[in-house]
């Protein structure tokens, strides 16, 4: 995470400046986002009634979150009944410690992982490396990001910002010989490297797309097949799950299986959907002998009961909101400086982490609503962003200048005559700045605007001022126009 530039704490705007200068990054993000948008459109159209499906998705997720205590109890009991071990973690540190404890007990030397945003959230890789445990990301994109010592810049396509030349260099450094930039060659290198890791690893760590309460099953949606190796080849399987990722029943999984892949990558279903219920049964020869489920809160339960924010827990982490976001499109994922980027990240990061660190993220949005429109479970993301800005104001965290400005707004805009006066003053004030009928000056409070755009000037006469004249002009025309009608005997006002 690049929350520091030259050792200084920075905000999303500073970080995005770096991104905005990176033409490759922006081209790569646009390219992939466009592909995904197009594929999503085709996939949702083929389903028909996409809106009805979204409505379903929203209803099912809302119901689950509104009864999360019940379903969480049912789910975890069923996991245990199927032979799994369940751990609860209040925060990231506790979850990471729980993982460590299991690894210590198993005397694990090497760990294979499949993509899991929760594992990023608890920063587990770092901790494992500190303890001298080898940890390998096995999803191709995650592996690339890991070799580059970076974090994912997209929740579905972690290496969206890397090109094939960079990837070839990374793979060469990792021991690849005679590699070309050809996708096939690069993929083959990853496959061969990973095979050995899978077979040797002591523990596999995965996330969890959905937990099915009625059965205690963990469901994973993947395309590469790495998650199935991670779950089945090592002796121990650890599942990291955000506490809200549940569905009441298998019937509901059918809805999500239709929504998630379409929204995420425009597929009608992912290549693999793996339903894992506890550990291997007596008589099974492969599959993990021990399964540990870690249920993470880390700020999630705080959103329950907040009428507005509760819906953020409906998120199924499909990434659709990133792909349509015009801000993400310009600045990419790292500029957000948080584990979760894009619109969902701008909502989730500040609520999962209290304090000032991510407080500026809700402002990194033009509130265009593309995210809300794309979201397969109808989370009103742009409303939540405004809601977070309101919280920020209520807690007195906004800048003094801004507060004064809006106090001025209140005074001026609560009475038309006051507004009139304010406008007159503005008209006077702008005089020094006007060139060729608009404002180009890049100084002053509007510099964010004028650095890249000309600004209009306040009109000589406002509409309020013009109204009387306009009205009487139209009236005269009417009277004029009505005369011939009177002859026809028309009765018009």
């Amino acid at each position, binding site marked *: 995470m690049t929350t520091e530039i030259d050792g200084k704490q920075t905000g999303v705007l500073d970080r995005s400046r770096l991104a905005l200068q990176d033409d490759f990054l922006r081209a790569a993000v646009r*390219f992939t986002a466009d592909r995904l948008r197009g594929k999503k459109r085709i996939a949702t159209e083929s389903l028909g009634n996409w809106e009805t499906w979204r409505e379903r998705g929203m209803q099912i997720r809302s119901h689950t979150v509104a*009864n999360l205590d019940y379903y969480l109890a049912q789910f975890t009991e069923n996991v245990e009944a199927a032979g799994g071990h369940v751990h*609860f973690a209040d925060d990231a540190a506790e979850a990471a410690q729980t993982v460590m404890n299991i690894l210590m007990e198993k005397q694990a030397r090497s760990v294979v992982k499949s993509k899991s945003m929760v594992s990023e959230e608890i920063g587990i890789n770092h901790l494992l490396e500190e303890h001298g445990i080898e940890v390998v990301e096995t999803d191709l994109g995650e592996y690339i990001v890991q070799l580059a010592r970076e974090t994912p810049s997209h929740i579905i396509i972690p290496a969206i910002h890397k090109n094939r030349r960079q990837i070839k260099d990374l793979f060469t450094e990792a021991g690849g010989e005679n590699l070309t930039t050809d996708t096939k060659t690069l993929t083959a290198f990853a*496959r061969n490297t990973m095979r050995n890791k899978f077979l040797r690893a002591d523990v596999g760590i995965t996330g969890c797309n959905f937990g099915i309460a009625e059965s205690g099953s963990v469901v994973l949606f993947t395309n590469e097949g790495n998650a199935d190796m991670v779950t089945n080849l090592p002796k121990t399987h650890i599942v990291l799950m955000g506490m809200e990722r549940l569905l009441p029943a298998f019937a509901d999984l059918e809805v999500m299986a239709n929504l998630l892949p379409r929204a995420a990558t425009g597929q009608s279903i992912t290549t693999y959907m793996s339903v894992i219920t506890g550990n291997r049964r007596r008589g099974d020869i492969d599959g993990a002998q021990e399964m540990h489920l870690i249920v993470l809160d880390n700020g999630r339960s705080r959103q329950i009961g907040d009428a507005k924010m509760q819906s953020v827990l409906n998120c199924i982490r499909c990434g659709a909101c990133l792909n349509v976001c015009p801000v993400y499109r310009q600045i990419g994922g790292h500029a957000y400086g948080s584990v979760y980027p894009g619109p969902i990240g701008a909502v989730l990061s500040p609520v999962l982490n209290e304090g000032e660190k991510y407080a500026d993220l809700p402002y990194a949005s033009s509130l265009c609503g593309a995210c809300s429109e794309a979201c397969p479970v109808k989370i009103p993301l742009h409303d939540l962003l405004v809601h977070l800005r309101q919280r920020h104001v209520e807690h007195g965290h906004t800048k003094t200048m801004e507060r004064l400005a809006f106090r001025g707004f209140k005074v001026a805009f609560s009475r038309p005559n006051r507004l009139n006066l304010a406008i007159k003053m503005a008209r006077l004030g702008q005089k020094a700045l006007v060139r060729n009928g608009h404002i180009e000056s890049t100084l002053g409070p509007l510099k964010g605007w004028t650095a890249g755009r000309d600004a209009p000037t306040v009109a000589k006469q406002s509409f309020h001022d013009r109204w009387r004249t306009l009205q009487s002009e139209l009236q005269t025309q009417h009277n004029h126009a009505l005369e011939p009608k009177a002859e026809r005997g028309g009765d018009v006002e």
Partner: protein
Amino acid sequence: MKRTEFLTRVSARLGRNGVPGDSPARDVVGVPEFWSQRELSERERVDRFRDNLVNLGGEVHLVSSVDELRDALSEVLGSLRIMRVGIWNDRELQELVNPVLESYEVSTWGIEPASAFVDMDLGITGAQFGVADTGTLVLSCGGGRGRSVHLLPPVHLAVLRASQIKTRLGEALQELSSHLTEIDSYVHFVTGPSRSSDIENDQSIGVHGPAAEIVIVVENL
């Protein structure tokens, strides 16, 4: 206890004293009616299954007798120059295909050691269901139906009866739902070959899982 503390906190946020004893009332469950009420004939299901799987780069052979099944299998094995074959320890499946496998090096799950399956060229399995809507195979793994048989080799071949092909995913899920206590610890829904688009959104096949998915659908059996 941690669990109680954790759940109580959630209940409190939801405005109640503890986890409710009764399951919550629901007015909306599962897919919209227009989706579940569709009815397709077996012919339509088979065709849709094939079309969808082929679209994703899978291979589907429709056969209508045991002899045809064996011919198709032997053609596949021959054309791919397969030498080592892994197979589920499943009587019915084995009876269907064994005559073809005589000239191959065959490892049967549970008979040969699991480590042998790392080096198979092709894995043969049955499947519990097919799903027409998506071209999906449902593999419920346990006992003789080892997971590694279809996960590890570069080619996966499944034998499926036409009558096992359901219209939609939900029918297969319904089956799990109605046998909750007997659910295998691993049920794998497989749709086409393994793929990734992580390098410049350029799709590549056979990343970690099999690069080829071949299904022989047997009709009238």
